[in-house]
């Protein structure tokens, strides 16, 4: 049966046909497809890797932000506390200064009043003396000739009075 004895003609053409198919597909067919698929595979892997890294970085950024916010919160607290202290201090200082000022003014006023009083006293004394002399002069015009000696005795008496 010819089915199990190869025909030379068919064998000949089969070698040529299969040879051409093999050469053409080896040169321009399968390597191109396999390479394209592999390239795409590595590109996808690379992209996934990149996306993963970006995600990780994003997560890190979030953690960092949270940390910054927490830090800022703490700083804010300390600043507020400081400000409160400062306020207390300034208030206390102002109070003290005001007190001091008042005290000084009071002293000044006291001194002024004292001075006034003294002047007034001196004035009064002088005027009293004058008045007394005048009075005495008038009373004793006739009786007393030596005005100066009289005045001196009165002055002395007044001094004694003051001392006493």
């Amino acid at each position, binding site marked *: 049966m010819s089915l199990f004895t190869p025909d030379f*003609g068919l064998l000949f053409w089969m070698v040529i046909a299969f040879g051409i198919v093999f050469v053409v597909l080896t040169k321009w067919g399968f390597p191109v497809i396999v390479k394209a698929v592999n390239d795409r595979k590595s590109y996808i892997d690379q992209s996934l890797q990149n996306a993963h890294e970006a995600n990780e970085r994003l997560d890190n950024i979030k953690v960092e932000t949270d940390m910054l916010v927490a830090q800022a919160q703490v700083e804010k607290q300390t600043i507020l506390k400081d400000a409160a202290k400062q306020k207390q201090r300034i208030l206390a200082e102002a109070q003290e200064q005001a007190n001091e000022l008042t005290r000084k003014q009071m002293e000044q006023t006291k001194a002024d009043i004292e001075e006034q009083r003294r002047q007034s006293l001196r004035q009064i004394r002088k005027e009293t003396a004058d008045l007394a002399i005048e009075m005495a002069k008038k009373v004793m015009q006739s009786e007393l000739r030596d005005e100066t000696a009289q005045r001196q005795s009165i002055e002395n008496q007044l001094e004694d009075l003051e001392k006493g």
Partner: protein
Amino acid sequence: MNTEEIISEHIGDSHDWHIVTWNGHPIELHLPILVWSKNTGWHAFSSSHLAEGQTYEGLHYNEKGKITEIDANGSESRPLDISITKNVCGLFMVSFITIALILYCANWYKKHPLQAPRGFVGLIELVVCYLYDNVVDSVIGGRNSVRFAPYLLTAFFFILMCNLVGLIPVFPFGMNLTGNIAVTVTLAATTFLVVNLTGTKHYWKDILWPNVPWFLKFPIPLMQVIEIVGLFTKPFSLTIRLLANIFAGHTIILSLICMIFTSVSMGVTMHRSMTVVALLFAVFMNMMELLVAFLQAFVFTTMSASYISQAQVGSEEESEIEET
């Protein structure tokens, strides 16, 4: 009605491409005849000149349908026949389809770098990737995968196309290519050449001086004989497995179809029931053959890959040493 004749005509090769018989007249395509005879040299003419037992330029068909030459002395001889027969036409067609298919896909990748194909190209990619990952890379592995993938993939698609073309019964398909020994022998011989021409030192050492007790290889080279016989049984099994599967499939389907016509003489009831049964079986067998078409292409590729990988023993170490 001669069932055996019909079946062998459908399964075999011929110089005329018979399409259909209409009103008792065959409608057929006469294919070119191309023969070389050592007496009269080249002959090239249409096979219509030899139709119905005619003799042309001293050539005629013998009882087996082969071209025979009768010389002046009346003695018969067979010239060298490289005619474009029905199967040769089929081979050309399959080659064209396979090349067009794969180059179309390869071109798509060139036009769309780093993109994933859909539809038809996606289907081919699926098959190529499946074979590359599960057959070539898992059996051979390493850098040799890239080296041998083109041959294995070419063999797969070529065999698959031959098988599928054989399953379509209408013109211009239906020739029995992979059920013809010339085709399967060529395919197996290519695998044999690829395996043995690329074989490593380790591979040849295992054949010519295997690792067995010395009395098995000297003075009588028992192991060597076994190994060398083994070299040739591999392509032989490849040839016969593919041939027998496809041949048997075609024969069974044709027998079932012929059953419809042979049962005419058995009466109307018998004929009708036989027609239904035969059709059901033929549909089943066709589906089966569709599976076998893929399966045999796959088996041929897988077996070739495993023979290649056996011949690549130690090639990875060798290339590593070369690099360092």
